[in-house]
């Protein structure tokens, strides 16, 4: 019995073990199979990942960008063209009287009555001259003008005399295309490369140069990103960021700076902050250095960064025929502070203060000048009938500048964005000026001409030959001038997108570096006057939008955006009280519609 019991017990004990052994064997087999399958899959995936890794490691630049197509309808109201030469009629008297009996000039001397009599005589007795005066009204007032001066000083007058003709200019439709290709690449854990290539052209033009009718017509380094040139990609920005240097909060960035589309101009572009410096003061392409410190890491204020920026705006030697050793010019250096006091995604407060030393009377640029210097005296006095392209470069250092501003913007929870920015510029002019007549730093320096010949052409019209006397009439040289500007706006969510309104005002001497703004009529923020803009953005999808809008310019003073030349009241130019080398716009409309795709 015991034996049987023992046997049974043993059998019972062994049985489950055997059954388990059989189950175990099955499970292990399954597991082995699974592991084999997984290994094969893993090998396969590893092979594919290897290929991807190879591609990523050798494909070093990450590209992104946007394409904008835009149509503008431009309407300029009450444009005045009051060009003229300042003629010294004292010296001209001999020449003017010579065709009608030269010796009379010696007799008249400075006697006004005799001069008046002679002129009356000429007009009355010489039919050709009388007809010429009738056909060219500018001659008659010029005579009257110099006759009005006291005896002994027949004086100088503008010839032809300024008129008060106003006309409208309409450009019904202008199409432009802008392509921006952004690049990002990683150099090292704490070093990045960023850049952007930019093509901006109007349809049908890839010449890269314009006929000069305003300072916006120059093709030049500082404004290439906002000035239509042609179907070529230009490098708008290219710089590296070397962050957390030595484990500190310092960073260093050198290259072609991200200095366009800065705050608060990004709202009208429907994008995030597009540049580092305040867009109200600086919207200009320049190469330079930025040394920054992330103060926010210490103070705890989000986004707080202090930056010192430096650049060279004009290279006075290289490229200017330096081996001739003729130009005695200093480089133009720019430097200053750009501080993001708060930048936490809702509030943005920025302080800017910088200066430019030894500002030159011109940047290096290309344009087709309507006038030409035909007699080689450095002053253009004839027509550039061959439409030759001129390369402009600075000829004098005309002074220094200081610029500063405070900007604040806020993005509310409900999607409303608003901003307010105030800025100031101060020009510190010296007594130098551009010899061609562009002027000094917010000052006039007009070359005085004299009449060296007066002929009547086949059509019976008088042809006046002018030559530079070597003298200039200057006004406002060596002065310090303060200019101010305010820029406000808001953007609210609206059906299918956003609605925005903006306004800015610039005072008489307001001289910022915003000339690279791509508004066709001219940088709206550089206007010496009032500008209003209204726009509607339709967000078709997160990467595509249509913008419809209008900009209204009301200029009060001439020379918006230019540091050379004394600003004059637009009304005075229109009334013939002042003359102006360039056409002067009073009011203008820019109605536009654009479509932008981002990728």
């Amino acid at each position, binding site marked *: 019995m015991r034996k049987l019991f023992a046997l049974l017990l043993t059998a019972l004990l062994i049985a489950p073990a055997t059954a388990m052994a059989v189950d175990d064997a099955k499970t292990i087999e399954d597991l082995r199979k699974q592991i084999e399958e997984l290994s094969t899959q893993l090998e396969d995936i590893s092979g594919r990942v290897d290929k991807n890794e190879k591609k990523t490691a050798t494909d070093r630049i990450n590209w992104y960008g946007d394409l904008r197509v835009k149509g503008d309808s431009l309407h300029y109201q009450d444009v005045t063209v009051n060009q003229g030469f300042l003629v010294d009629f004292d010296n001209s008297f001999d020449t003017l009287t010579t065709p009608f009996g030269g010796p009379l000039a010696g007799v008249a001397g400075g006697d006004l009555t005799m001069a008046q009599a002679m002129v009356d005589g000429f007009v009355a007795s010489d039919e050709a001259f009388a007809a010429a005066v009738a056909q060219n009204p500018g001659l008659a007032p010029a005579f009257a003008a110099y006759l009005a001066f006291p005896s002994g000083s027949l004086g100088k007058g503008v010839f032809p005399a300024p008129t008060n003709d106003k006309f409208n200019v309409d450009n019904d439709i202008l199409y432009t295309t802008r392509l921006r290709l952004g690049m990002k690449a990683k150099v090292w854990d704490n070093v990045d490369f960023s850049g952007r290539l930019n093509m901006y052209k109007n349809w049908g033009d890839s010449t890269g140069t314009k006929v000069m009718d305003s300072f916006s017509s120059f093709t030049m380094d500082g404004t290439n990103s906002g000035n239509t040139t042609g179907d070529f990609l230009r490098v708008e920005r290219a710089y590296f*960021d070397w962050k957390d240097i030595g484990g500190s909060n310092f960073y260093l960035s050198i290259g072609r700076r991200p200095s366009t589309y800065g705050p608060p101009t990004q709202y009208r572009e429907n994008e*995030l902050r597009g540049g580092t410096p305040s867009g109200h003061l600086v919207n200009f392409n320049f190469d330079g250095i930025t040394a920054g410190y992330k103060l926010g890491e210490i103070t705890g204020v989000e986004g707080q960064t202090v930056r010192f920026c430096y650049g060279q705006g004009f290279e006075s030697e290289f490229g200017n025929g330096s081996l001739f050793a003729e130009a005695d010019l200093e480089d133009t250096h720019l430097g200053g502070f750009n501080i993001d006091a708060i930048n936490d995604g*809702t509030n943005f407060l920025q302080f800017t203060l910088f200066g430019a030393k030894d500002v030159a009377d011109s940047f290096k640029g290309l344009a087709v000048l309507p006038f030409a210097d035909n007699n080689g005296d450095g002053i253009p006095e004839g027509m550039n009938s061959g439409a030759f392209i001129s390369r402009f470069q600075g000829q004098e250092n005309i002074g220094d500048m200081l610029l500063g501003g405070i900007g604040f913007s806020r993005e509310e929870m409900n999607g409303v964005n608003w901003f307010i920015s105030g800025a100031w510029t101060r020009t510190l002019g010296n007594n130098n000026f551009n010899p061609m007549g562009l002027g000094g730093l917010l000052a006039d320096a007009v070359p005085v001409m004299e009449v060296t010949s007066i002929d009547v052409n086949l059509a019976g019209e008088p042809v006046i030959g002018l030559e530079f006397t070597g003298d200039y009439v200057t006004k406002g040289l060596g002065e310090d001038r303060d200019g101010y500007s305010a820029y406000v706006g808001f953007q609210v969510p609206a059906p299918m997108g956003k609605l925005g309104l903006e306004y800015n005002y610039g005072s008489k001497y307001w001289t910022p570096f915003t000339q690279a703004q791509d508004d066709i009529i001219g940088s709206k923020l550089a206007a010496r006057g009032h500008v209003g803009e209204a726009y509607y953005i*339709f967000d078709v999808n997160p990467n595509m939008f249509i913008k419809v809008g209008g900009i209204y310019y009301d200029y009060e003073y001439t020379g918006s955006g230019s540091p050379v030349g004394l600003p004059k009241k637009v009304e005075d130019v229109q009334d013939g009280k002042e003359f102006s080398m360039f056409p002067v716009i009073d009011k203008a409309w820019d109605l536009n519609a654009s479509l932008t795709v*981002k990728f």
Partner: protein
Amino acid sequence: MKNAVKLFACLTLMIFAATAVLAAQGGNPKKGKYLYKKECKACHDAGGEGGKLTPLSKTQAQWDRFFDKDKHKTKPDAFKKFSDQDVKDIQQFLFDHAADSDQPETCG
């Protein structure tokens, strides 16, 4: 002037004919940022329980997958304290600032 009016009219028609605007995901990214900083950063900071995590840690598609499929399954309690709209707001914030989202174009 006539051409401008024609252009404007064409564009307006286009707009109304186009598909309706796709609001990104219906979340408020500003609220999401506030919630993230208040509730999530505690664990998801350097040295924290969840490890350092910022919006830049993932791409937009990866964030979408996380919120659609994963739903923070390593610690489901983390999500329990949020309402549905709160979660959407946080998702919108992370999506809007993801590695492949638009970034401000500044130096540094």
